[in-house]
């Protein structure tokens, strides 16, 4: 039985996770520069200590209402396509999950959310959706 550490965060009522190794850092309160003509899921660009990083809005990705967003945080990750930042609601922290809790994506998530996940971990009182970064990147480009 193998265990995995996931960085977990909230988008709306959903808890998402990505491999902790992929996460570079979590930052707040960035000044964004809009990128006209880009995909609508791209919020813009931020300056992360001299590096220009593209910000993907997870609420827009998942077609959740933006009006309901009360707080936000930038999860900066390393992906094959380069450094990328996800704009999510709130951090939950690092969680340990095991293969036993793993399930293929099923009807637990809404349809849109399903297209962005690789599977589900059933936690004791919560479902944790494993985010498929490749799909997020594809939606953004």
């Amino acid at each position, binding site marked *: 039985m193998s265990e995995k550490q996931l960085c977990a965060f909230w988008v709306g009522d959903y808890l998402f996770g990505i491999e902790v190794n992929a996460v570079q850092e979590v930052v707040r309160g960035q000044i964004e520069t809009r990128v*006209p003509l880009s995909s609508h899921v791209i919020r813009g660009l931020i300056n992360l*200590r*001299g590096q220009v990083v593209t910000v993907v809005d997870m609420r827009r990705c998942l077609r959740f209402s933006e009006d309901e967003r009360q707080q936000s945080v930038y999860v900066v990750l390393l992906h094959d396509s380069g450094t990328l930042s996800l704009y999510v609601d709130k951090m939950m922290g690092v969680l340990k999950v095991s293969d036993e809790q793993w399930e293929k994506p099923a009807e637990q998530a809404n349809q849109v959310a399903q297209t962005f996940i690789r599977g589900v971990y059933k936690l004791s009182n919560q479902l944790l959706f494993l985010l498929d970064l490749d799909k997020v990147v594809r939606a953004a480009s």
Partner: protein
Amino acid sequence: MNEMHEILLEFSAETRENLLEVEQALVQLEDDPSDVEQITIIFRAIHTVKGTCGFFGFDALERVTHVGENLLSALRDGALSLTKEMTSTLLELVDVIRRFMDRIEETDSEAGVDINNLPERLEILRQGKPLSVLRQAETVELEDDEVIEAKPEVVEAKSEVIEAKSEVVEAEAEIAEPPRPAPQRPPSAPSAPRVEPEPAPEHGEKKAARVKADAESVRVTTHLLDQLVTLVGELVLTRNQIVQRVEAHPDQVLTPASQRLNLIASELQEAVMKTRMQPLSTVFNRFPRLVRDVAQACDKQVQLEVKGGETELDRTLIEAIKDPLTHILRNAIDHGVEDTKRRAAAGKPEVGRVLVTAYHKGGFVNIDIADDGGGIDARRLKEKALSAGLITGDQLARFSEREAFALIFLPGLSTAGAVTNVSGRGVGMDVVRSKVEAIGGTVELTSTLGEGTTIKLKIPLTLAIVPALMIRCDGERYAIPQSNLQELLRFDPSDKDKQRLENIGGAWYHRLRGQLLPLVYLRHVLHPDQPRVDQSQVHQVVVLQAGEQNYGLVVDGVQDSQEIVVKPLDSLLQKLSIYGGTMITGDGRAALILDPVGIANQAALSAKQVRVTRQVDEASVTKGQILLLVGSMTKGRMAFPLSMVSRLEEFERDKVEVVGGRRSVEYRGEIMQLVNLSELLPERRTHHRHGVIDVDSLERLSVVVHSNGARNIGLIVGQIIDTVEEDTRTRGRPSRDGVAYTFVQDGHITEFLSLQSLVEKAEPDFYEAQ
């Protein structure tokens, strides 16, 4: 082990450098076989490789270089004269040594390199026999037709030959072996002591020279250099933030410190950028060999001439244009230059010429590749494009000759009648264009049927840091590279400039000096869903050059110019061709860099709109006053009315007296004060990249003499550039005190000086003392 690997890598790097030299020398030698100097160079280089091999115990490499050295030694002593066969075989030796280096770099060992029967062939040549001796031997044994056909000269077909040849080695060994030990050893044995003492001192000298060079230069990995460039870029941005902050809140301790930081960072940046520059000869040096090989494969005679190899360019850019240049050159020989017969029939010299010229012009490195071949038939090109379905018959009829030549850069179009070994496979000029454009360059082809073809590449000097103009659109800031910038315009269509704005066929144009300039509204491009711009409001126009065409980009506002560090566009945004990259502004925000070509495409600035640009009445242009354009000591550009200049003078430095910190010179029987114009102006941040010229280090001073009617004052400038007519509509906001406004002249931001106030700063009573 690791240390050994390092040493071996050094050996191979050095050897590769030597091989480049050998290659060049060989090709040069072929043109002029009497050039003993070249043989000496080749001999020395091969000798060095051989010598080092012995040290590392690379026996196979030592053997093959040894035989090569024997042949070279005979050539040098005049016992043999160079034949084409020899050149080809020696070039093959170069290739084989390269293969050894590949192997050694990978495995630290020389095992497994296929050297073919090269030593045997070199030996036969050394005996003064033609290689056909070998072939006769082959045919005797094998009676194989294929082998007879396989010419060793045909470099392209080498792989096929290798197999055939290796079979032959054993067969030939029996025949060639018996006579070899006898005649070969004796001459080479006595020749050894005769040869050695001679090159030894030379070699020693060179060694000494190299030791000296080593002490002054070290090998540094390019990765480390790239890292330095990135870090310096960040340092400069951080410096900008600190300097801005300190300026707003002066502090006794921090202000001088930040000024020093400013200076040091600038110098550091300049020095680091210099480490990236390389002369183009690093690419050009490969051309003679390339041209020779391709020409032989095509059975043509081509003479290559290269000029401007010393022109320097950013290392990454050199790397990027290597393939396109090679491709263009191959094309020039394969498709451009005709064969000897046809050239003779056309009354041209039998030997075709290809001329490669590199030079600096307008902030770009230009590389022209010209051949004197058959040229391109624009009509045939159009027909091809039509049959390939790339254009419609309608378009075809309207195309000008230049537009037709641009077709050659479309994917899937080759003018080669037949697909040859060398080129004409349909991958071609489109790849060249995309590669050149990817680094911000342009490529253009002109051709005259029967006379030849010229391809012009325009490459920006450096990728990493470029001067750019900041503009505003819908609340965001964008950068436009200054290399694309022609000029700035401002006009008010609601008022006197009404006639300047014209609508033709739904597209907007601006009348500019007798031309119609197509207008592109940046808001419409970036925010197509937003309401259209009110055409009657004041227009801020940035005139841009995109490829061959100019257009006016209407923006919300024009800000200052900055030196920006270009960062590549995130892969998520790569398909947005309107952006060329990203950057970070002085206040630490991310910003996008606009790509003028991409914007023109996005705005569908159609060929139709460009073509409407016709001559209109010249008289509608307002005439401004004549300006004198000068370069400052910080290499910036400044201008002031020519009417304020009484004379332009040059003074020798030793004529200039310095008393109490003031410079003066005897001029027309009176003492005239000299002031450095740059010292009168406050330091401008955007100039931090340029080195400041030290006035006291100049042998001659360029001086603009200004007079109040009775007294003169001499203004020291960096250089006198030109006189131009002022364009009253191109004013930008002043950049600093003493500057009335800025404008763009020939792609340079130029400061229009308030000369009077500057002079008063130097001599408060100058204008009163009449």
